[in-house]
């Protein structure tokens, strides 16, 4: 009774207080300003040239590589070193006011030292407005791998600012075509994400298509016509060892790995019509996944690893379909135009990216799987073969520049495009590799 009274009194007191507070706040009506839109431009970052001690390789400018990486992401806008008021390499030399005047949000400073056959980098990232250090680390790499060290720093800076893992230390696979004296040379190449350190893994006079990285980044699956017909190979990058995994009558194409690396989805026409199959790489078992009179192809596992996306012309033209699990009833995803193909699901499961044709031009587009809203991401016109970075933030695709095939990287938010330096001839069929440690 007494307790209840006390509780009641306390409640009454609280209610009174609440009423008072409400009245007070009503009287004061504290202002609330809602910010629902951010800047459309990229984040301004100053990457100050690193101080160097010791005889470092001249052609491997770490701060420049970091600057290029951040720029390529489309999410950052870097300040040219000649515009900097000072070139600090330590915190005590950083004058935040200067960087604020220059409109910079973040400043990266650091120094490089040669230690025996290794290069050691000590670097710090500061938030100019908050005047706080948000990253500080020492990292090292062999003298021959200064680029790897630079990409590592880019990854760390990217993650510290955006909260998303960086993908600058990953690799790309793509196919180049060079025609010399009427003879075509197809080359399967692997490079850094900025196109540097490219190496040829396979060369053939016949087409090479659809390279696909294994989840551990150690193997590539691709289609090669070297035998005169399309055959799917699995190629170990470290050893160069190649294994024929699909050489069935008819079409053998569009290989795609399961997230656990055990299965390979592929398109086969062994039964007369192009259908999607799943091959168990351990047992060699083959399971037919689709069964339709139309063409079903270009399958990719979704982010869960249970379902898949694929292209089918069962509705008349090529459209993207989704199967929630192997053998489930497919659902059509794209409706925006008569041509939508080559689906590439994003790692967060929210979007699916694909080639979209409109008014005779091919673009890269994406559909929000939650809302069904479609967004066209590129404007160039002959865009094809999209491939997502493993963090889902960048997308590389093949396009034409001055009539020549090149690779372009964009931010999935539709930011600035960055074209990879074109080698001789055409570049096509890019495939972005996984993040590996």
């Amino acid at each position: 009774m007494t307790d209840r009274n006390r509780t009641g009194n306390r409640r009454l007191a609280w209610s009174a207080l609440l009423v008072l507070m409400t009245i007070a706040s009503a009287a004061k009506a504290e202002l609330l300003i809602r910010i629902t839109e951010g800047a459309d431009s990229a984040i301004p970052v100053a990457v100050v040239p690193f101080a160097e001690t010791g005889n470092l390789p001249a052609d491997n400018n770490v701060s420049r590589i970091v600057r290029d990486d951040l720029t390529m992401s489309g999410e950052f806008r870097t300040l040219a070193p000649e515009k900097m008021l000072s070139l600090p390499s330590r915190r005590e030399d950083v004058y935040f006011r200067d960087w604020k005047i220059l409109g910079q949000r973040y400043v990266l400073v650091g120094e490089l030292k040669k230690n025996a056959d290794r290069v050691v980098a000590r670097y710090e990232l500061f938030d100019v407005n908050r005047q706080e250090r948000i990253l500080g680390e020492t990292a090292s790499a062999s003298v021959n791998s200064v680029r790897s060290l630079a990409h590592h720093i880019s990854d760390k800076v990217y993650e510290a600012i955006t909260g998303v893992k960086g993908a600058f230390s990953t690799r790309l696979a793509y196919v180049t075509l060079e025609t010399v004296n009427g003879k075509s040379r197809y080359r399967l190449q692997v490079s850094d994400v900025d196109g540097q350190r490219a190496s040829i893994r396979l060369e053939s006079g016949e087409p090479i298509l659809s390279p696909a990285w294994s989840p551990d980044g150690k193997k590539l699956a691709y289609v090669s016509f070297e035998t005169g017909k399309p055959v799917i190979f699995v190629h170990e990058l470290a050893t160069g060892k190649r294994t024929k995994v699909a050489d069935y009558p008819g079409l053998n194409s569009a290989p795609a790995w399961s997230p656990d690396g055990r299965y390979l989805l592929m398109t086969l026409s062994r039964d007369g019509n192009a259908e999607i199959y799943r091959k168990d790489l351990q047992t060699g078992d083959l399971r037919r996944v689709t069964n339709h009179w139309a063409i079903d192809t270009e399958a990719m596992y979704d982010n869960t690893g249970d379902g898949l996306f694929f292209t089918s012309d069962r509705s008349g033209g090529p459209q993207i379909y989704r199967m929630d699990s192997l053998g489930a009833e497919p659902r059509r995803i794209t409706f925006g135009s008569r041509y939508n193909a080559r689906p590439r699901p994003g790692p967060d499961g929210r979007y699916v990216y694909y080639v979209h044709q409109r008014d005779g031009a091919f673009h890269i587009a994406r559909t929000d799987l939650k809302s069904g809203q479609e967004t066209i991401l590129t404007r160039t016109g002959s865009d094809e073969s999209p491939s997502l970075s493993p963090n889902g933030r960048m997308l590389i695709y093949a396009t034409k520049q001055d009539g020549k095939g090149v690779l372009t990287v964009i931010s999935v938010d539709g930011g600035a495009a960055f074209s990879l330096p074109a080698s001789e001839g055409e570049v096509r069929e890019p495939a972005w590799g996984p993040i590996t440690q």
Partner: protein
Amino acid sequence: MRQTERTQDAGVQPPWASPVAMSVVLHLVIVVIAVVGWSWMDDTPEAPPRSISARLIAPQPEPSPVVSETDQPDQDRERQAEEARKQAAEEEQRNQEKAREIAAEKARKAEAEQKAREQQKQREQEQQRQQEQARKAEEAKAKAKAEEAAKQKAEAEAKAKAAAEAAKKREEAARKQAELEKQKREEAARKAAEAKKAQEAAERKRQEQERKLREQQLQALAEKARAAEQAEAERQRQAAAAKAQEARMLSESEKYQGLIRERLSRAWYPPSSATEEMTARLRISLLPTGELASVELVSSSGNSAFDNSALSAVRSLERYPVPDDRQTFDRYFRQFTIEFNPRRLK
């Protein structure tokens, strides 16, 4: 001895009267008597049978009477008379002997008779004694029996007495117990009555308190209602009075809110990890010049990159656009909250 002495003194007398002869004769007589008397003496009566049954015994011959020698005269004084008397004595002795024999016979007979009588008497006595014994035994038996009975009776009585006493004790105990229980019951009843009384009193008190409390609450409610009414009236009056001023200030404030929103939107770079679900709230304090006095993250988005982007945006403005009117500034912009939520991601 005496006979030997006599014989020596009679050497001149006839042979037959000589003391030797006399002694021999006397001795012979004595021997005979002795033999006869011995055999008589030997004939002792049979011990009466122990049994109480009597047995008739044939009468025994009377024994010869025993010659008493107590009256023999003194040797010296009677030596002359002795001679004379010897004749007579011998005659006398013969006669006496004859008489003695008769007497002995008689005595024997009498003795026998006496004996028979005595035996009879003894038997009778014995019988009597036995009877007496039997009687006594009977009596003893009876007495023992009586004693036994008495004893049993006594024991029974003792037992009965003990039982009675025990019963009495039990009764006493039971009585006491009953008394005690009664007392207890009475005590309990008394206590219960008291408790009930106390409870009733408490209940009355509680009811009284509740009643008072209700009254107080009702009064408080009434007062509260009155106060609320007054407050409402006051508020309405104030609102009406302040409306014009408020409208003026609000329009002014809205103008500067829009300016701040625009500046912050340009200054904010939502990180690529941002989602539409993320919201960060910051409390801002400004100086009347529009300079940032302080900023505090009051509600995190859960994503540190997002929170930092918001903080960075707020701190990036050198000077916030604020109204010159001090009242409007104090009212809206001295302290306010900014919410960052990317409802529309780029």
